[in-house]
Every structure is written in C-alpha cells, then in structure tokens.
C-alpha cells in the first residue's frame, strides 16, 4: 500500500461514502455536548459576563480558518508538484469552508467586541490579519472560479495559495507591529490556560465539532467535484447506471404496491 492508495478518486468516493454519516454524527454530537457545556454548565465570566460565551463558536472558527488555509495551500501544492488529482480537488473543496470559517470568526468577533470593548471593530493585529485572510480566500476563489480549464485553475490556484502561505506570517507580523490592542491570547502553549475547566471542555468539544463538520462538508463538496470531473470515466458511469437501476426497481415496487 502506497501513500497514493487513497488518492484514486473512485476509491475516495467509496470510502468517503462510508465515513460521511459518522462524521456528521460526530459533528452533531460534539456540537450538542459542547454547546450544552458552554452555554449551560460553564460559569459566567467575572469581567465579561455571559457575553464571553460566543468564544465557543468564535475561537474554533478562527482556528479552523487558519488551519484550512494551510491545508488548502498544502494540498494544492501536493496536487501541483506530484500531479495528484485528488489533492487538487481537495484544495478546491477546502476553500469555501475556509472562507465561511473566516467570515464566521469575524462576525462572531464583532458580536463579542461590542459588549466587551464597546465597539464592533477595532483595527488591531488579529482582527486585521483575519480580514486579510478573508481577502486571501476571496482572491483564491475568484482566481480558480474565473479559469475555465480545471487543470490550469488548479495549478494557478496552487501557486497563489503557496505565495499567500509564504506571505501570511509576514502579513501577520507587519500588522501586529502596526497596531496592538487585542487582549492577550487565552490559550498559549507551555502556560496554564487562564480558563475554568468547564470552559476549556466546552471549547475542546466545539473544536472537535468544527473539525468533524469541516471534514464532512469538505468531503461532500469533494465528492461532487470528483463526480463532475470524472464523469466520463467508467466507474462514474457504472455508478450512474447502478443508481438508475435502483431507481427503476424502486419505481417498479411503488407501482406494484
């Protein structure tokens, strides 16, 4: 078994079909548990009151927005350098979810900022970097969507994503240097987090929920892209023929019953 074993679009389509219900279930379960812990069980913050509870959405969304951009750039590069078709398609499937997470992080951040800072928006380092991340996602999507040839779109998108990924740290530090007003990060590596255990538990569960949701939604989109691009291959035709036969059987059963 080689690392490309799962890169065959037909095999991906079969396996993801089995995995998807479990991912959706995991996302729903973790989100329910996480929201229950976060909204009902976690204590009210001494300074921010109940307004802080939006972190259970805000922080995982912000994490996902960054992770997904790295994943996008990484898979796009793999697809470009080694010519792995599925990796290129995966990069394309990741972009809308990343854009959605970035937008979600920005909007929830504004909702959090209004009661705690008294303003919807400040031009500080983390907010501005997140906004620029949104623009990077937007640029990537605009570029790949306006190129009709999928091969060129994949490669051009990969180049842009890699250039963007090289630029992300430069942008982050330039923006941070430009202005800093944000509250310090609550969770940092190597230091005990300044949060109650139940808050941490809620955040952990919500993070898992976001991961499961992101995998699920990306797989759904990827399956659609795979079928669209491979529509002329034998396996997709066989799939289509099988489904048509199943429909006919079901229709016949309905007619006899």
């Amino acid at each position, binding site marked *: 078994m080689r690392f490309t074993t799962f890169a065959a679009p037909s095999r991906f389509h079969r396996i993801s079909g089995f995995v998807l219900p479990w991912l959706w279930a995991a996302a729903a379960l973790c989100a329910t548990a996480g929201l229950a812990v976060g909204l009902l069980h976690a204590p009210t913050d001494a300074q921010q009151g109940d307004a802080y509870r939006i972190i259970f959405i805000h922080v995982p969304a912000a994490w996902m927005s960054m992770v997904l951009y790295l994943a996008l750039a990484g898979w796009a590069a793999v697809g470009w350098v080694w010519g792995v078709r599925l990796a290129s398609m995966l990069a394309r499937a990741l972009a809308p979810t990343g854009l959605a997470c970035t937008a979600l992080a920005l909007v929830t951040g504004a909702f959090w900022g209004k009661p705690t800072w008294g303003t919807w928006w400040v031009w500080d380092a983390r907010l501005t970097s997140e906004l*620029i991340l949104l*623009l*990077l996602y*937007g*640029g*990537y999507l*605009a*570029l790949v969507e*306006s*190129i009709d040839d999928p*091969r*060129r779109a994949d*490669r*051009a998108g990969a*180049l*842009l994503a890699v*250039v*963007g990924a*090289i*630029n992300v740290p*430069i*942008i982050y530090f*330039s*923006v941070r*240097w*430009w202005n800093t007003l944000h509250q310090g990060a609550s969770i940092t590596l190597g230091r005990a987090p300044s949060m109650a255990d139940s808050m941490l538990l809620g955040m952990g569960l919500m993070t898992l929920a976001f991961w499961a949701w992101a995998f699920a939604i990306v797989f759904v989109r990827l399956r659609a892209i795979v079928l669209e691009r491979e529509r002329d291959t034998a396996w997709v035709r066989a799939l289509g023929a099988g489904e048509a036969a199943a429909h006919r059987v079901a229709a016949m059963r309905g007619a006899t019953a």
Partner: protein
Amino acid sequence: MRQLFLVLYLRDLRLAWRRPVDALLPFGFFVIAAALFPLGVGPEPQMLRQMAPGLIWVCALLATLLSLGALYAGDHADGTLEQLMLTGHDGAAIAAARAAAHWTLTGLPLVLVAPLFGVLFDLSGDALATLAFTLLLGTPVLSLLGSIGAALTLGLRSAGVLLILIVLPLAVPALIFGSGAVAAVEGGQSAQAQCSLLGALLLLSALLAPPATAAALRIALD
C-alpha cells in the same frame, strides 16, 4: 542570462517610448487620485499632514496595480510571450526583466513625483525624503508581486480587477512599512526599522517573485 535581461528590458522601454501615453496613464491616475482626497476630506492642513503618508502610498499602490493588467497581455495576445518562453531561456530572467521595466515606467515616476504631493499635503522636508526613499524601496516590491498576479490572470475575463483582488492582500506589508516610515519621521522618530524591513521585503520578493512569475506563465501557457 544578463544579456537576455538587458535585451528584454530595453525592448520594453523602447516600446513604451514609442507609445508614451500608455506609460503615462498610471502616473495620471496617481496624480488625480491623490488630488481628489483633499477635495473629499476637506482642506485642513493638520488632517492632510496626518493622512498624507498612507494616502500617497495607497494611491501609488493602486496606480501600480492598475497598470499591471497590461504587463503580459500584449505579448500574450500576439504570441510573442509563447515564443519567448519556447526559446528555452530562463523564465525567471524574462519575468525579472519585465518587472524591472514596469518599475522603471511606473514606479520610478511615482518616486519622483511623490515628494511634490508631499508638499501639497504640507509634509516636512525630512518626511518628504523618507517618502521618496520608501517608495524607492517599496514600488519594486509592488511590481514584482504584481507580475505574479499578472501572469496568473493572463488571458482571463476581467483580468484587471482579478489581479488587483489577488495582489492587494499580499501588498499589505509594503504599505504598512512604507507609510509607517513616513509617519514615524513626521512624529519625530527614526524610520530605520521600517526602511530595513522594506529593504528585506524587496530582497525577498526580488529573489522569489521572478521564479514564481515564470511558473505562473508556464501554467497559463500550458
């Protein structure tokens, strides 16, 4: 390779020389855009002085990017670009020559005229010198980054807007350091840190942008 660079560079300058209006368009855009701001925000010298560094930098950024849409379009349309890439020469040298010519035609005039606008916005002498210096360091970065975008959007519908959309986020650091340096001098501080970072940015983009542009050209022409 140096020969190729020089030949292409001089060719672009000669082409621009024979069509001077095309080369002057971004320059005209810069002048008009910068002149519009006082009309929009009001003539108070204090406020204009405060806004001037960022304002001039943003106008320079937009003027540079607006002119980048045509960077490879003409040569792509008549097949010259394809022939050039087929010669087997280093694509990075071709991209570097193109970016250098673009900077000479749009960046350099901006460097020269920006102090004039600084005077209109009531900037001090030191700030004017810093403004020209940061534009001297920063506009090549914009030309280099922009040439990646120009190569990526080659031959696409609405390539011009697309190019601006994908290059602007990447140009944020240059904008921050460039206008930050002028603001620092205006506030009585040293601009050395900003200028050093801008120089580092220039070195990095001079090193990485030409090969990336060449790769983008190969993708577009494939």
